[in-house]
């Protein structure tokens, strides 16, 4: 049997995917782990291309890698340093070893189930085309697409609400006034509710 070029590419790509996944799990710092994960996602995009799903490969690279993972990387690296601390490793070594062996066995059993499933006995029907994909997405699954857009909008609004900045200087800036009291020093933001901060603000003004 002649050397199958596609098989060589598959071995390289899947090796990169597995190496990236292992690096993601066993890297000691969060930023490194995220870079390994991006390698895995690149390999998965290449596998989408090998399965003739060109559109999905483009979505994977443009949306997933280009925006989502990059935003997470910035969010991890540009915020507090202690968030990337290495206190993440397990302390119960015996239990974690048993868990690892159990998961390895589970993966092997799943692998056997998937590879020997009778659905692979029939011939390969061939991949659909991108035109079929667009037709199905915007005709057959229209409602799902619209609901998905609403879900994404809700998620973005909720995320920006969760990370809102409650510092006094920003609240005062929002109302178009100037801050009367001195701003707190550099460091952790001082959390105040709106009512208490306005009271303190008035008191500071009276003292001055």
């Amino acid at each position, binding site marked *: 049997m002649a050397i199958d070029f*596609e*098989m060589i590419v*598959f071995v390289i790509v*899947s090796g990169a995917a*597995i190496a990236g*996944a*292992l690096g*993601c*799990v066993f890297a000691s710092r969060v930023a490194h*782990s995220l870079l390994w*994960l991006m390698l*895995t996602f690149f390999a*998965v995009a290449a*596998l*989408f291309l*090998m*399965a*003739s*799903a060109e*559109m*999905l490969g483009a*979505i994977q690279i443009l*949306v*997933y890698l280009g925006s989502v993972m990059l*935003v*997470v990387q910035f969010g991890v690296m540009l915020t507090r340093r*202690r*968030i990337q*601390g290495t*206190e*993440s*490793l*397990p302390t119960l070594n015996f239990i*974690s070893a048993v*868990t690892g062996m159990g*998961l390895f066995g589970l*993966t092997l059993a799943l*692998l056997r189930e*998937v*590879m020997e499933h009778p*659905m*692979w006995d029939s011939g*390969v029907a*061939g*991949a*659909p085309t991108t035109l*079929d*994909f667009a037709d*199905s*997405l915007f005709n057959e*699954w229209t409602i*799902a697409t619209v609901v*998905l857009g609403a*879900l*994404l909008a809700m*998620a973005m609004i909720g*995320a*920006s609400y*969760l*990370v809102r900045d409650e510092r006094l200087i920003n609240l005062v800036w929002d109302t178009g006034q100037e801050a009367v009291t001195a701003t707190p020093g550099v460091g952790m933001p001082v959390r105040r509710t709106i009512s208490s901060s306005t009271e303190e603000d008035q008191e500071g003004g009276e003292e001055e």
Partner: protein
Amino acid sequence: MIDPSWIAALGVILFGIGLLGTFYHKNAIVVLMCIELMLNAANLNFVAAATHYGDVNGWVFTAIAIAIAAAEVAIGLAILLSMYSTQQTISLDAASKLRN
């Protein structure tokens, strides 16, 4: 074309590694990334089945899964940053507010 069962097998391996990571780590951001890994493994299975049967629905499910994963990452990161600013840690052992 390569046999789709190989792609499904790689999906199983990635799923196992992601599951190991969710058990192995205490840092919530790494656990979130391992969940992303498991979602990608599921996507690989969808694509393999779509190629095998010539059915486009597997691709549609994959696209929907990618969009939902994007929303999940945004919400998860926001929750973790908010948790850090209130508790000064994102270790999953410390996240016991709902338990008490």
